[in-house]
C-alpha cells in the first residue's frame, strides 16, 4: 500500500483560485500515475489553509507561503513547498524526498 493512500492532501495559494487549482491538478496527475488514492484532495486560499492545515496530512504551497504554515509540522502535517506549482515532476520528486512516495 502506498504511503499516501487514504491521506488528506491540501493545496494552498493566495486566492485559492489560480495556482492552488493548478497544484491540485498536478497532484492528481502524480496520484494517478502512482496509483494512489488519497482520502481527500482539495485546494483553498492560504487564509483558510492556515487554520485548516492541521486537519491535513500533507499541505502543498508555493514557496512564497512557507512562513504562513510555520509550526504546522508540530501537528504532524508535512509541508511540501513548491517552486513551480504546476510541475507534476517537482511534486513527485518532493514527495519522494519527504519519504511519502517510493
Amino acid at each position, binding site marked *: 500500500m502506498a504511503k499516501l493512500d487514504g491521506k488528506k492532501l491540501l493545496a494552498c*495559494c*493566495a*486566492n*485559492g*483560485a*489560480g*495556482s492552488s*487549482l*493548478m497544484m491540485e*491538478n*498536478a497532484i492528481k496527475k502524480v496520484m494517478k500515475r502512482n496509483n494512489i488514492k488519497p482520502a481527500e484532495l482539495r485546494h483553498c*486560499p492560504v487564509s483558510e489553509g492556515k487554520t485548516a492545515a492541521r486537519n491535513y496530512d500533507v499541505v502543498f504551497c*508555493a*514557496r*512564497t*507561503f512557507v512562513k504562513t504554515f510555520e509550526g504546522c509540522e508540530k501537528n504532524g502535517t508535512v509541508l511540501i513547498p513548491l517552486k*513551480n*506549482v*504546476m*510541475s507534476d515532476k517537482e511534486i513527485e520528486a518532493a514527495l519522494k524526498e519527504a519519504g511519502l512516495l517510493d
Partner: protein
Amino acid sequence: MATVLQDIVEKKHYKFIDGEGVTWQEAIRLSTLSLVADGTVTEDFYQQIIACVEKYGPYIVFEHNIAMPHTQENADGALKTGVGFMVSKKLIDFGVDEDGEEKKANVFFTLSTTNPDEHLQNISQLSEIFMNDDLIDALAAAETPEDILKAEKDFPCEEE
C-alpha cells in the same frame, strides 16, 4: 469544444503591446482591457490584482516569463469567467521574489472567475500550456490573433 486559446481569439480577448517602460502595475491594467471591452470585468478590476501582488509578492509570475494575473473567485469586478491574453515585446519587470530571484513576464493570461466549472476547465488547459515550452515561445512571439491559433496548431498540448 473550443480550447482556451480559440476562445481567446473568438472573443477578442487579446492584446499586443511593446512594453517599453511599462511598469508591472500598468501591464496588469493593460492585460485586463480586452476583458473590459466586452464586459467580462469592470474597468477597475485590475486594482484588485495589483493589491494581491503588493500583498503577496510576484507569485503570479511563473517560469518561462509567464504571468497569470488573477484574484479570488467572484471578486468584485469579475462579471463573467474569461481569460485575457497579452504579449509584451519587452519583458515586464515584477521585482524579486522571496528568494531574491528576479521575476519578469512577457506572456500574460489574466483570469476572471465567476463560474467554477468553466474556470476549472480554463486552469487545466492553462497548466498544460504553461508546461509546453515550444508553445509558450511561439505565443511570446505572436503579433496577431492568427499567430495565437497557429502556435496552438504547431505545438499542441497532449490530451489527458
